[in-house]
């Protein structure tokens, strides 16, 4: 048995090592190339989000941030943890590294107050983005880029009124997520029809598929499925078909495939908070601040990146950029 | 049980070491058909190393190992089984939750049908297992019951019957009576003698000279990896065996020494002690 296994194991180890090396190369290559590009002073900026690894939304945020970093000769570090405790540890880590600035999502503001204070004491400016529009000032961030979930939810609800919807199903892919709950809640408040909430397991698409199918079968009055993330809208289309439901699908946030679905008319519209812009602005803010002392929003007002509607009226313009994975 | 029959299994000056430790040195052993060879010895005397060499788990370093006159190159228990050497370990190599018949045929299942439809011949396996057990004189209430619902003695017998059925020429029993009470031990000893009558060579490992003497034809005592005694039954009494087992010559020397030194010393201590109390 020993003899038999020696060779495959060597091959396997080699393959695994090759895969790791290749994966490692691609992530470090970007920033190394950037450094030589400009001769303005190099800043090191860390971005710490609560994004789930592998979510297309956060990928676009990251691309925006990387675009800004390349343009402004910034040494950019991205890290993410969906547990608040881990996110705080990552911020601590950035502080210990002595970065020049930290861009942070405040999904759970109270839990991150401590680390933001520590960063400020260490003389590191902090920019909040994406989540925490209510609390960023109090927590101690110098500016905020993002949308207001309530604003977005309210706009969505009004749009549903215009569309003549009667019964909306709000699909939440992560239970207990403040921003997602806020979207559904605000939608419910501004929408004149009935709003029903359903939780799905966002990390298992087949389970999302069957849960939505079950929901649509059990209540045939649902005429609009509202998903809170682009991939779920795509799955909802399949669920509606399987359940024999005529419900239309609209969503918060977008990605490349979703833009195509809006184009071919199967998804009605999307409310976009422009993740690329969030990532870009929150990195660019440091360059402006560190090199020229500028504050966007005067450190008093949040800078809104949404809500922006994407529908058949403007889809052609957006589709071009979506193909690059940046919208 | 004559000495003239050719041994079916023969170790000559076999040695095995692990690093600096000589687990076994220059040990010779012959096992003949229809004979029970008892291997006795304390813990760490090299009994288990010896069984593992015989059953193919270990390779010996020095000496030779012949089966039926052929040099033995067992590199796995499977090879040893194919050579007709079956070992019944202390844990019996039974899988507790499996039914009796599945255990009986484990690793040597009977199948019917062409691949990929080759399947277990359940009916035949159940019938044969039941027959073989009846031949050994035990009747299992239900051949489908898990093995762990049998008594300790019954389980031993299942393991022995299995070895015999699969054409074992040499049956190695590793301390089969160690965990059993008197009555259950008696049951197992009966089957050992039944196996001998069936013409098998039996190697019976034990540290109980009384059990060994009840069934043994040839006795081997191991001490610190070397052969301390190798004697046919004819040249040995139970007392000799017990004596050897308990330490033999070493024990005599110790006894002598203790007699010489201890008696006066103990007395002196006592007297002194008494005086102290008295004063």
């Amino acid at each position: 048995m020993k003899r038999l296994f020696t060779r495959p194991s060597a091959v396997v180890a080699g393959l695994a090592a090759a895969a790791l090396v290749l994966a490692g190369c691609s992530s470090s290559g970007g920033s190394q190339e950037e450094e030589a590009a400009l001769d303005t002073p190099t800043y090191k900026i860390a971005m710490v989000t609560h994004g789930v690894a592998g979510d297309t939304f956060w990928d676009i945020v990251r691309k925006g941030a990387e675009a800004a970093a390349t343009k402004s000769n910034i040494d950019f570090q991205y890290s993410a943890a969906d547990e608040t405790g881990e996110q705080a540890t990552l911020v601590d880590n950035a502080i210990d590294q002595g970065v020049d600035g930290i861009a942070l999502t405040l999904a759970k503001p109270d839990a991150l107050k401590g680390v933001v204070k520590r960063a400020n004491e260490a003389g590191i400016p902090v920019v909040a983005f994406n989540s925490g529009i209510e609390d960023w000032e109090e927590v101690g961030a110098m500016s905020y880029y993002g949308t207001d979930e309530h604003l977005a939810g309210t706009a969505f609800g009004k749009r549903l009124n215009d569309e003549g919807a009667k019964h909306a199903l709000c699909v939440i892919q992560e239970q207990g997520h403040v921003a997602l709950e806020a979207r559904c809640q605000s939608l419910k408040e501004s929408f004149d029809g009935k709003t029903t909430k359903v939780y799905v397991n966002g990390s298992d698409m087949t389970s999302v598929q069957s849960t939505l199918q079950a929901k649509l079968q059990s209540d045939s009055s649902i005429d609009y499925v509202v998903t809170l993330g682009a991939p779920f809208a795509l799955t909802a289309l399949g669920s509606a078909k399987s359940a024999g439901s005529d419900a239309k699908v609209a969503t918060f946030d977008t990605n490349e495939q979703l833009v195509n679905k809006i184009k071919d008319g199967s998804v009605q519209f999307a409310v976009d908070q422009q993740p690329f812009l969030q990532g870009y602005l929150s990195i660019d803010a440091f360059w402006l601040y560190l090199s020229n002392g500028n504050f966007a929003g005067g450190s008093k007002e949040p800078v809104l990146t949404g809500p922006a509607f994407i529908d058949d009226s403007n889809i052609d313009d957006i589709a071009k950029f979506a193909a690059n994975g940046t919208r | 049980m004559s000495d003239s029959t050719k041994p079916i299994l023969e170790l000559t000056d076999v040695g095995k070491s692990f690093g600096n430790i000589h687990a076994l040195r220059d040990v010779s052993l012959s096992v003949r058909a229809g004979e029970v060879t008892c291997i006795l010895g304390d813990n760490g005397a090299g009994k288990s190393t010896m069984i593992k060499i015989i059953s193919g788990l270990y390779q010996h370093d020095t000496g030779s190992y012949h089966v039926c006159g052929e040099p033995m190159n067992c590199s796995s228990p499977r090879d040893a089984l194919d050579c007709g050497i079956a070992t019944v370990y202390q844990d019996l190599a039974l899988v507790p939750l499996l039914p009796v018949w599945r255990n009986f045929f484990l690793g040597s299942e009977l199948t019917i049908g062409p691949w990929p439809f080759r399947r277990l011949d359940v009916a035949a396996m159940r019938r044969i297992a039941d027959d073989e057990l009846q031949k050994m004189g035990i009747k299992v209430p239900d051949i489908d019951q898990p093995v762990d619902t049998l008594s300790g003695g019954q389980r031993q017998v299942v393991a022995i019957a299995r070895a015999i059925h699969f054409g074992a020429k040499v049956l190695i029993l590793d301390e089969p009576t160690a965990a059993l009470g008197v009555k259950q031990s008696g049951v197992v000893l009966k089957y050992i003698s039944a196996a001998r009558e069936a013409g098998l060579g039996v190697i019976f490992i034990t540290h109980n000279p009384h059990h060994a003497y009840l069934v043994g034809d040839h006795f081997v005592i191991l001490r610190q990896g070397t052969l301390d005694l190798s004697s046919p039954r004819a040249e040995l009494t139970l007392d000799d065996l017990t004596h050897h087992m308990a330490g033999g010559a070493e024990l005599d020397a110790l006894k002598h020494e203790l007699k010489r030194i201890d008696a006066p010393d103990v007395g002196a201590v006592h007297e002194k002690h008494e005086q102290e109390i008295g004063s």
Partner: protein
Amino acid sequence: MATTKSPPRKPASPPSPETVPGGTPARVTQRSLARRFATRPEVGSLVGAVAVFALFFTVAVPFREFDSLSTVLYASSTIGIMAVGVSLLMIGGEFDLSAGVGVITSALAGGMFAYELSLNIWVAAALALGVSLLIGFLNGYLVVKTKLPSFLITLSMFLMLQGLNLAITRWVTGSVASPTISDMDGYASAQKVFSSTFTIGGVNVQITVLWWILFVALATWVLLRTKVGNWIYAAGGNADSARAVGVPVNYTKIGLFMTVAFMAWFVGMHNLFRFSTVQSGEGVGNELIYIAAAVIGGCALMGGWGTAIGAAIGALILGMAQQGVVYAGWNPDLFMFFIGATLLVAVVLNMWVRLRAQRR
């Protein structure tokens, strides 16, 4: 001559069957058919399944529709196909925590091979199968080689795959989801195999349900009627004993890990051809669902005991609980609570049935 001098021995005839040596009491006779049935590992879970079904049948009106049954079966099948492999592995005495992300690894691999190399979908699927089997082999090989608990080995594999899924997808596609492949050669035929629907009596049923039944039947046959099945039980029940009687325990275990990997490939392909694109962060947490299905179905956590049918019933319970809560329209905030509570009831009932059966 030796015989003449040795002390008299009892004639070596074996004792007669009537004496029943070893002290088996004569009162233990043939076990009754009912009791035999009740001690089967899957019976407790069957009672649990019936209870859960009855519960939702009573409280949720839409649950009574055949369409709903089809949805429940679909949800159960995606858990159940994996549970087939996972239960076999657990019977063989090992765990696989990398099974959840393994599904996504396979789907991502299939999507990326097809798109990036412009391959026919079937070729890409075959390459993805290779990737999956390699992961399974690596899991098994490391477990038998290091003799470390499979819990640790596959936990490491789980975390590594989670990272590789993301990193390689990003590196290859520049995005975190696999590219859409729905317009490529062979997609339509692959979709027919892995993710199509057929109609029985006006009800649309996902093909995964059929595959699930097929895999369960196959696994049951292998377990109960083949050599390999015997080896699987033995490897999990007592690996040392099995090894001593010549069972190739290491090969069996590696084979089991590769079986799980095969199932992961299958479910991965279903994901790929159902949704045409796969997000690289999915799959996390599902490994516990698969293990739960196996355990609810009567697989022992320590190995050596269980059936594939039991695991299928476990998957059905989980599928019914997940969808039943939705059909019942219970407060969505308590969604997870209801699933947990349903499970708890099913598991306790399961144990109660088993204990009663043994005591009787």
